[in-house]
């Protein structure tokens, strides 16, 4: 393996670690009201970097294009910022790519729409316990007014029982790992640093396009682009749909099986390609491909969530080439659920019996990449929302995908490949609603220092 000297001390901590030990999180977005005051405040902050392992708390910070502009940084092609970042998440074209139409339209977002001038900076606060966070946050917020900031919006973040997602499935299983940072992981998931960190070679063996500012040529170095999308999850609707799929009486086992087909894994995380039942023994739930035994999708359907968001070795051609191409479209996920669990222990059989509680819950989807268009937007449009993915006709990602028809969000279809003929589940409702989001740039530590100097 080639040795990449990754400058951990210059990289913000959240990029290199999910902070699994810091269980409580708060994402606070603020407006810069006084650039000078904000700069000196920023210079005085202790920002967690990748060379340390914070045990009690960690603060990381990212900026929208509007935020950098508030600090007199020009965000354009001449300065080497990505077009997607400069324009922001909410444009007419991007709405189509990302499925932000109908009920997902930015006019319904609570934050981040193009008309929202408030979202400048995101303070990502992580603490060991909720109590610690409850002590820390008021202290933080107390500094805002005197330091040229105003709170715009905040979201909580936490882990659910057993690292399950709100629908009850094990979450965040397959994650790309940055080459050069030694950790055990299947080879397929090892991705060159330049896909997630600016200043290192990317999947095309080239340097990612990097922001350069007057006075700091290497402003982009050790930084990354961050995508934040607040996705509400409709848990009761999800399980009602599964129960109703084969008729009114709703067999629990069949409902869980269908949901697992949609996810591509059993609730405990075992991939369908390796495990015919949730009890089957699996050596490594991350280490598998579809090409060898499951190309037709008879085990893990072609349109399932995990296959669409990471097709592994199936992107037409030889498996090895496929993985290489596939890995030019990976994202580093760092999101956390928000809102109370539907069922305390995320037991699906209990969920199936529980009436709707009317509470909002979902996922703060957060991911990092160095080329938003080739990575995050590609995954969302070419894979998740693509009705024609891998030869399909009319399906989208059954969990997160958006089917468009005449500018509106339409019910979706899910195809379960089988022999001799497939089964189709039609008229599926949306299980996820987009509530707000933005594209951010997370600078490296030295670049933060540059912004702090003014």
């Amino acid at each position: 393996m080639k040795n990449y000297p990754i400058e951990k001390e210059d990289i913000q901590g959240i990029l290199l670690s999910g902070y699994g030990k810091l269980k409580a999180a708060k994402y606070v977005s603020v407006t810069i009201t006084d650039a000078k005051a904000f700069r000196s405040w920023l210079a005085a902050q202790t920002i967690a970097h990748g060379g340390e392992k914070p045990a009690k708390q960690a603060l990381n910070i990212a900026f929208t294009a509007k935020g950098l502009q508030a600090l007199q940084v020009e965000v354009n092609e001449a300065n080497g910022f990505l077009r997607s970042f400069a324009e922001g998440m909410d444009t007419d074209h991007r709405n189509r790519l990302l499925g932000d139409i109908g009920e997902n339209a930015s006019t319904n977002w609570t934050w981040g729409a193009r008309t929202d001038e408030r979202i400048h900076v995101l303070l990502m606060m992580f603490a060991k316990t909720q109590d610690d966070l409850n002590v820390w946050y008021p202290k933080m917020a107390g500094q805002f007014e005197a330091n040229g900031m105003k709170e715009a919006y905040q979201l909580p973040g936490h882990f659910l029982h057993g690292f399950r997602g709100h629908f009850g499935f094990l979450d965040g299983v397959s994650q790309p790992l940055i080459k050069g940072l030694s950790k055990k992981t299947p080879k397929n998931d090892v991705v060159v640093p330049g896909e997630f960190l600016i200043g290192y070679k990317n999947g095309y063996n080239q340097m990612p396009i990097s922001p350069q500012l007057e006075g700091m040529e290497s402003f982009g170095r050790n930084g990354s682009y961050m995508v934040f999308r607040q996705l509400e999850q409709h848990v009761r609707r999800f399980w009602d749909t599964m129960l109703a799929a084969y008729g009114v009486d709703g067999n629990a086992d069949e409902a869980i099986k269908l949901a697992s087909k949609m996810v591509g894994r059993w609730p405990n995380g075992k991939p369908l390609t390796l495990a015919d039942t949730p009890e089957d023994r699996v050596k490594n739930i991350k280490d598998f491909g579809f090409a060898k035994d499951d190309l037709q999708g008879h085990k893990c359907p072609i349109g399932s969530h995990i296959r669409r968001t990471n097709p592994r070795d199936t992107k037409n051609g030889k498996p090895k080439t496929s993985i290489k191409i596939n890995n030019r479209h990976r994202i580093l996920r760092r999101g956390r659920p928000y809102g109370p669990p539907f069922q305390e222990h995320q037991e699906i059989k209990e969920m199936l019996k529980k009436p709707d509680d009317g509470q909002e819950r979902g996922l703060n989807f957060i991911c990092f990449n160095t080329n938003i268009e080739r990575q995050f937007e590609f995954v969302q449009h070419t894979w998740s929302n693509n009705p024609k993915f891998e030869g399909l006709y009319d399906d989208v990602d059954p969990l997160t995908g958006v089917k468009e028809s005449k500018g509106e969000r339409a019910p979706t279809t899910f195809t379960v490949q089988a022999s001799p003929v497939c089964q189709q589940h039609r008229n599926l409702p949306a299980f996820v609603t987009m509530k707000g989001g933005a594209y951010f740039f997370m600078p490296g530590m030295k670049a933060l220092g540059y912004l702090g100097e003014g």
Partner: protein
Amino acid sequence: MQKAFNLIAEIYPDKKAMVEYLFKDIQARITDNDIIPFSQITTIHFARFVLLPEVKHEDGSTKFPPYLAFSTNYDGDLDNHLEEICKVTQGTFDQVFICCKDFPKGEITDIDRIAFMKRNSDYRAYFYQGSYERSVGQILEEEKRRQIAMGYIDTLDPFVNHDPHTVRDGILNVLKEAGHDKPYPKVIRPTLSLWQILQVIGTVILILACLIPFVLVLLYHEIRDAKKLQGIQWDYSHTQKLAQQEDQIVQNQLTHLVEVKPGWFRLFTLKMVLGGIAWLAKYYFNKGKLGNIPTIHFARWVLIDGGKRLLFFSNFDGSWESYLGDFIDKAAVGLTGVWSNTIGFPKTLLLLFQGARDEVRFKAWARAHQIPTQVWYSAYKDLSLTNINNNTAIQEGLAERPHGEALVELLERY
């Protein structure tokens, strides 16, 4: 037979605004507008109108005049296609053509119109067809049949193991009842005759014989061109304008216009490469993939202005980002071979190497020379190329009445 029609006619510079206005009108009601109601023209797969803007020399004089480009991917022979266009449009099309310098004035008939269109479309198109030789009618009918069959498959109990023969008979039955069971003739893909194989061998020997001097001249050109290359130049507002048009339906279009590097050597090389690609498209890439890319319905290269500029039209599935990604990941050699002969292309090595693999520079270059397509029509906006080819495989497969494993494979295509 699927063919490519390219009309490229010079327009009066002061008529540009009027043409743009008409194009907006047409695009707003693309299928049923009053000027050219595309859905009534049965021979068209894809069609587009593009204004090729005027290009000026540094001193302000005209380098290339403004043109109107009208292109279609059509079935059958050209006369029949143009006659159908005239018959459907009943002269309403003159509103557009009147902006062209060469369009006859006064009272005119369809004979004059057809003569005008033919006169201004005498270009060789280096052409690729993803839905090789199927007509619009066949493509739409095969999708209809799949949907009828799916209606039957939907009624099958998901908890029962079904006998493939019973399922096949059920499908054949519903198709027959619906009157959608007449088989189409099997698509015939050309193969090489012995004489043609000898010609290929001869050509290869000829190329090999010339290889050393060719490579030397090429290297000289490549080193010289690399020195002229400037930094990556993005223009976000131009790119945004193009992107605003995209991702409305399953397919997208690309119109790309770039100057060929000056001198006979590059033009000669370009013609050789394009000739090679068109030949391969006919004899080898005739099963739905160009290189290894399965999303291109039609693509064509046309040399205009006496070989000074290269025009490229493409109709493809999915986003620009995924198309360009496929270019780089799966067909970098071919497209570098073509566009390395045009200005501003990323540095290449031995014609085929490097070039497009310089991802960001290549994408910036592609956007810089892409021009907006004012009018674009697709006859089957809900079908991907993979769908079309799968539907044909089903239709042809059913007609062959397969058994055993072949039958199961066929049914799994649904």
